[in-house]
């Protein structure tokens, strides 16, 4: 399986990354090398092997549904690049 520059452009869109033509070319080459190396895993028969989703034996943790103090508006917006009227400001979502 080898990937093309078109695949790289598609994946960049999925990842919300804007790549320049040079970055696209380098990444195509490097991702192919890494994925080719990853093909090594196909030497192993994993039929019937359970995937590891968690290394320890843990179960879901639930807490009591009680109201607790939450972040203040001031704290929540402390690092906001832009804010207005106590809200994060973003450009138009619908164009």
């Amino acid at each position, binding site marked *: *399986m080898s*990937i093309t520059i078109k*695949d*790289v452009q598609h*994946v*960049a869109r*999925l*990842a*919300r*990354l*804007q*790549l320049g033509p040079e*970055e696209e070319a380098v*990444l195509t080459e*490097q*991702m192919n*090398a*890494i*994925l080719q*190396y*990853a093909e*090594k*895993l*196909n*030497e*192993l028969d*994993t039929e019937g*092997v*359970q*995937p*590891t*989703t*968690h*290394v*320890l034996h*843990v179960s879901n*943790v639930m*807490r009591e549904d009680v109201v607790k103090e939450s*972040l203040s508006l001031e*704290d*929540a917006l*402390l*690092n*906001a*690049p*832009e804010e207005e009227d106590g809200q*994060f400001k*973003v*450009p*138009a*979502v619908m*164009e």
Partner: protein
Amino acid sequence: MSLFQYRLSELHNMLHSGQVSVSELTEESLAAVARVDGDVHAFLTLDEEGARAAARALDDKLASGASRGLLFGVPAGIKDNIVTKGLRTTCASRFLDNYQPIYDATVAAKLRQADAVTIGKLNMDEFAMGGSNENSAYGAVRNPWDLERVPGGSSGGSAAAVAAGEVFFALGSDTGGSIRQPASYCGVVGLKPTYGLVSRYGLVAFASSLDQIGPLTRTVEDSAYVLQAIAGYDALDSTSAKVDIPDYLSALTGDIKGLRIAVPKEYVGEGVDASVRETVLSALKVLEELGAVWEEVSLPHTEYAVATYYLLASSEASSNLARFDGVRYGVRVDEGGGLADLYHNSRSRGFGPEVKRRIMLGTYALSSGYYDAYYLKAQKVRTLIKRDFDEVFKKYDVVIGPTAPTTAFKLGSQTEDPLTMYLNDILTIPVNLAGIPAVSIPCGFAEGLPVGLQIIGKEFDESTVLRVAHAYEQHTDYHKQRPQL
């Protein structure tokens, strides 16, 4: 004579008897940073004012006779992917250049409760992705033993700051070797605890199923002290383990008679430098003299660990780093387009090349049509790698080998090919995949550069790992040797 020759337990007594004050210790640490950090570049943010204020408050506490925390008065550094309230936290990324955390990570809060003094935040590979520190957006850390060489990564700043005598201990994080490999390259003690032993709350997530916080120190005893202070269940981390925390210091008995050691042939075979292999075999002789027995074993899936790791870690990273969108914090590049353009531009400007590469790889591995072939396959191989360890631990107490196949390499010598760089982690990655604890301790030098011995234990058996490391350390003096800066 420098106060940096003392262990934490000795400092504790010196503070108690009034031989030294917390302010003096803190000044000693700040002076060391001023003296050497221009060369080493371990610190990204120095909090002189905060450290001095904390030191004064602790001196008052000492005078009042109030009870003292486990790390009382000890100047420390924290890797810059661990959030500290009000103290800039960048993850060594341009994306978070001005990020001011609004809360403390659990470990940062625990250091405060233990009365440690945080001097500042330490350099690292951007978002902990890398093994040489060359991926820091603020310039690489340099190895205190040879300024032309890398300190290792990603906790390179943490390892270098301890090796250079800038702080008495540091916290790092380890996803595929990021505490142990730099500890090995810099000649310090680096412990990766069992997954879930130390809370990850406030650790900026890279690969959530692998990340674990741990201490970098100059001695094994110091490591036990810091681990004691930071281990424990935390309701704020949903993967935190509910286990009893033993007294790690009482595990340091010096007695390893009858200890059964497994040495995987894959860890001392092809691909490991002859000088590293020889040094590790000499260390095994020391352990033998102390009454341990060792045998060669096989961890047959070792050669698949790096491929497994890069698929899983990159996949998790691509998901975790989706939060950096230019809306709530960090870089925002608004060039007048819509919201989608804002995301694209902010992320492209904020992230460095290695971070982009891993996001791309992970997004690809998780994307429609490839999930089974890459991500799921890797999760299954992870099970096989864990089983290798389970089998060996039925007969043996610890697994021992080198921490890294080589000593520290020259800056710039491996930046061209990401895959070569990834292979430096071949001996540390399996431990993260299996979720078990391991420590790297100094075990000698090859051509003047430190070599690390890796001691791997059963899950939640940090006590045995530390006991073996401590017994070895008592009979050698490699940990006492310091770089000339």
